[in-house]
């Protein structure tokens, strides 16, 4: 089941590559939309069969791959990855839909890369073997590199090189960390393994944990991105094509957080606790710095990019407060950020496609003639601000609540980030949609076309759903966040740290 979900897009890409010959064919867009939609539906089927109360990973698939090195093809899903898989499939479908008119040249290649990217991301979320994880982790880099480099805007090559070099630096250090871990497992078990579930049972001393944590965390922190490793993000987001930005902000940044939750914390809890204050402060700097920089932007896409830095800081802060509310908040905020920031990039992409400018000063008064567009953009913008009743509020509220219990000072700083978010996002909305519509080029703009509408509506509906009735989502998340919290709270010796990852699930509080 999981394998099918992962490799269906890749299969679609191969078929696309082999079949389509004509340049003007519309088959690539419809074909790829179909493939990603089927994948999305399959992952919904996964959701219906998923048992939120069960322990550990579900739908596990395992077969030996490179036995000599203890590498196996091991997939599995839990609450955390389930939601992220759903988000990935949803956003990929939406971004393919949004590319229908935006991408005019070299369509076939474009959709092939989109589908490969989907495979890479899904694999990253579902792999339970570190080697397999690393392969998918790198695999998702390449298509994105092409997507930004070929279909991006003016400065695309600089942006794509910067993006790939940052990420690669991180991933090679992660490789070192993974290999160190592997040889620790050789020492502990007698035979090496890359299997995550087995590695959880590895007892490591605090000193060993420290360096391996850093090696892995560095890679994930670049992806998140955590201040001061964020500088690739504004360039990559700004120059990427709309769909690229949606995937990048919506899903790709989450792979970093996912990595921290799945690998860094459960494998190296001692180090995580030791480094938590430093990371929290970096997250706070990211929140405030990101927000202030966003405030100073003239380019709408860049503004949203910096808002991502700020929002991702929230998530990291929540996770490293290590209590149930904050971690759950962090996880649900990952989904929210995917919806709202992905949505914002989509909105900006729609207007960019019509006017080929992203400067806010080029717009003004759009609300006068683009009614549907203005309304939908406002909802998504407000969800990003964190207005009660919309999804962003739930996540931010939970995070701040949890962080407040953990450390009041952190919470105070974090709250200032929320206020700043309202300032810069509302300013942006005001500059684009209100005021006089005095630019003649803006007066004849067409409102949303049907495929744009269909791309935006699911996001808006989800924003309301999570905002008004988050319980189903929280139910899925809770076991995962509980496990993290238990791992961190139990005072453990260095021999048996991560057992709790598994055991914690047994001791779920009754709901």
């Amino acid at each position, binding site marked *: 089941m999981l394998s099918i979900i992962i490799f269906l897009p890749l299969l679609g890409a191969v078929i696309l590559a082999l079949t389509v010959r004509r340049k003007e064919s519309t088959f690539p867009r419809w074909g790829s939309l179909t493939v990603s939609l089927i994948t999305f539906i399959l992952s919904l089927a996964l959701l219906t069969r998923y048992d939120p109360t069960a322990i550990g990973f579900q739908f596990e698939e395992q077969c030996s791959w*490179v036995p000599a090195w203890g590498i196996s093809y091991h997939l599995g899903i839990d609450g955390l990855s389930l939601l992220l898989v759903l988000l990935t499939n949803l956003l990929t479908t939406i971004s393919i839909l949004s590319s229908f008119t935006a991408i005019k040249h070299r369509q076939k290649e474009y959709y092939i890369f989109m589908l490969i990217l989907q495979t890479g991301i899904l694999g990253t979320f579902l792999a339970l073997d570190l080697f397999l994880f690393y392969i998918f982790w790198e*695999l998702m880099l390449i298509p994105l590199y092409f997507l930004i*480099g*070929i279909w991006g805007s003016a400065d695309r090559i600089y942006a794509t090189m910067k993006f790939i*070099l940052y990420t690669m630096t991180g991933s*090679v250090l992660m490789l070192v960390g993974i290999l*160190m871990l592997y*040889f620790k497992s*050789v020492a502990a078990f007698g035979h090496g393994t890359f299997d995550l579930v087995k590695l959880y049972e590895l007892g490591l001393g605090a000193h060993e944990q420290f360096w391996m944590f850093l090696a892995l965390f560095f890679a994930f922190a670049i992806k998140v991105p955590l201040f001061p490793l964020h500088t690739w993000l504004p360039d990559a987001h700004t120059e990427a094509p709309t769909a690229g930005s949606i995937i990048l902000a919506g899903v790709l940044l989450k792979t970093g957080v996912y990595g921290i939750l799945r690998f860094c914390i459960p494998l190296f809890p001692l180090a995580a606790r030791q480094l938590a204050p430093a990371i929290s402060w970096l997250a706070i700097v990211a929140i405030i710095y990101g927000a202030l920089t966003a405030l100073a932007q003239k380019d709408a896409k860049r503004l949203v990019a910096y808002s991502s830095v700020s929002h991702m800081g929230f998530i990291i802060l929540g996770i490293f407060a290590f209590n149930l509310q904050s971690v759950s908040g962090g996880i649900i905020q990952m989904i929210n950020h995917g919806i709202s920031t992905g949505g914002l990039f989509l909105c900006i992409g729609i207007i960019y496609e019509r006017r080929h400018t992203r400067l806010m000063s080029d717009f003004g008064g759009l609300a006068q003639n683009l009614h549907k567009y203005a309304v939908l953009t406002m909802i998504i913008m407000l969800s990003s601000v964190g207005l009660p009743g919309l999804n962003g509020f739930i996540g931010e509220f939970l995070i701040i609540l949890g962080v407040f219990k953990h450390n009041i000072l952190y919470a105070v700083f974090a709250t200032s980030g929320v206020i700043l978010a309202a300032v810069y996002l509302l300013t942006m909305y005001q500059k684009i949609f209100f005021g006089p519509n005095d630019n003649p080029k803006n007066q004849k703009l067409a409102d949303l076309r049907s495929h744009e509408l269909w791309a935006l509506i699911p996001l808006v509906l989800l924003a309301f759903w999570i905002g008004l009735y988050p319980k189903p989502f929280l139910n899925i998340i809770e076991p995962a966040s509980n496990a993290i919290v238990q791992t961190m709270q139990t005072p453990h010796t260095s021999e048996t740290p991560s057992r709790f990852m598994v055991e914690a699930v047994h001791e779920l509080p009754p709901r």
Partner: protein
Amino acid sequence: MMSQPTVPQLFWVEVAPFVVLCIWALAIILADLFLPAERRRVALPLGFLGVVLIAYLSIQAFEIPGNPFGGMLTLDTFAFFCIVVILVGGGLTILISPRYVQREHIPHGEYTALLLFAMLGMILLAVSNELITLLLSLEILSLSLYILTGIERHNPRSSEAALKYFLLGAFSTAFLIMGIAFLYGATGSTFLVTIAERLPAAGQQSALWVFVGFGLILAGFCFKLALAPLHMWAPDVYEGAPTPITAFIATGSKVAGFAALWHVVMSLADWQAMTQNTFYVLWIIAVFSMVIGNFAAIVQKNIKRLLAYSSIAHSGYILITILVIASVPAVRTNATQALLYYLMAYMLMNLLAFGVAIACGRKGDSNIEHYAGLARTSPLLAAAMALAMLSLTGVPPTVGFVGKFYIFSAAIQAGYLELAIIGLLASVVSAVYYLRVIVVMYMHEPSREAAETAREPVGAANSLALLVSSVMIILLGIFPFWFLGLK
């Protein structure tokens, strides 16, 4: 006074690959002499046939492992693997040659025969277990390659490259001979096995001689393998030599050279006094090669020069395995496997890159800018080149990634964390120039001239070579255990 000469026992099956290869090459020379001019093109297909035949004979020979030629050669799994890799490399080189040879008016017969002689030198070098044999096979290999480098006589760059290669090569051979003399002086034998046996008993004086001897031999190898600081010849020679020959120099001679270096190091590695002293030397060479190669490659505009610097860097990565073998006995098996795997990987990706370079090259020109928009004009070639570049960078799921993974896991297992980190960061630097090739191919618009003039067809043989190496790069990247099953 002198020991009585004895007649070595010869088993036909054991020596068949070497003997037949030699006869085959001679036969091609003769055939070329007496065939009419218009039928001389059969030389290349004949050469390919020869390679296939030799591959078959080698598999036969592998059935009976042994030490033919009075123990001067060792036929074991290691040797077998190296021979196969070299034969595959040579076969692919012949496959990518025809169009180029035709285009540049290179004499077919000499070209093929010399290529086969070079291969003979390589496989002998890879399996030789005795220093004089090692030297002789190195000379067979080098002399053939010197001539092949300069075989484009009308091209001054080719002549320049040949002269540089020859002068510096001869110089480095002198180092090698001196080193062999020192080792012989210290231990009284040129057989590596005997040297290894006699080393522990070596006195203070002899120990010094062994160090000096090993240092000189290492210097000789550093030249052949283009390791810093003796790498200076590589860019000029790579640029000037005919492109298929560049590919062959970059791949085959590297495989053979590292195999021979492995034999030498293995014979010395068990000697306690050796480990500590060689460690620093090899460490410095490896790090310098990785750093210099990767940073110098960034500014290159010519694909062949770029690949030359990249080959310096790759030699640096590979040297890490030798370093591990020399200093940490516990990791020796893993490091040897890593060495073999990487040599194979390196050969496949480089031949793919050079194959594409030949397919899209125009007469006497290999500037990267000419690949602009290749993805539009010939998407398959661009995809193949992109695959080669990604594999050279070490991106999964390609053979290059598994190779790097293997090498650096051996380094970490041996406890050389800093070496692994330096190497991996160096490979991030390498991404800058490898990916720039992709940028040019995929993200630049094709020049008007390139869009209008139709490319000459790639040719069946070259297409086959590109296909085979592409498929192997991906398959061996996803299923490395096919390789692991061999050991």
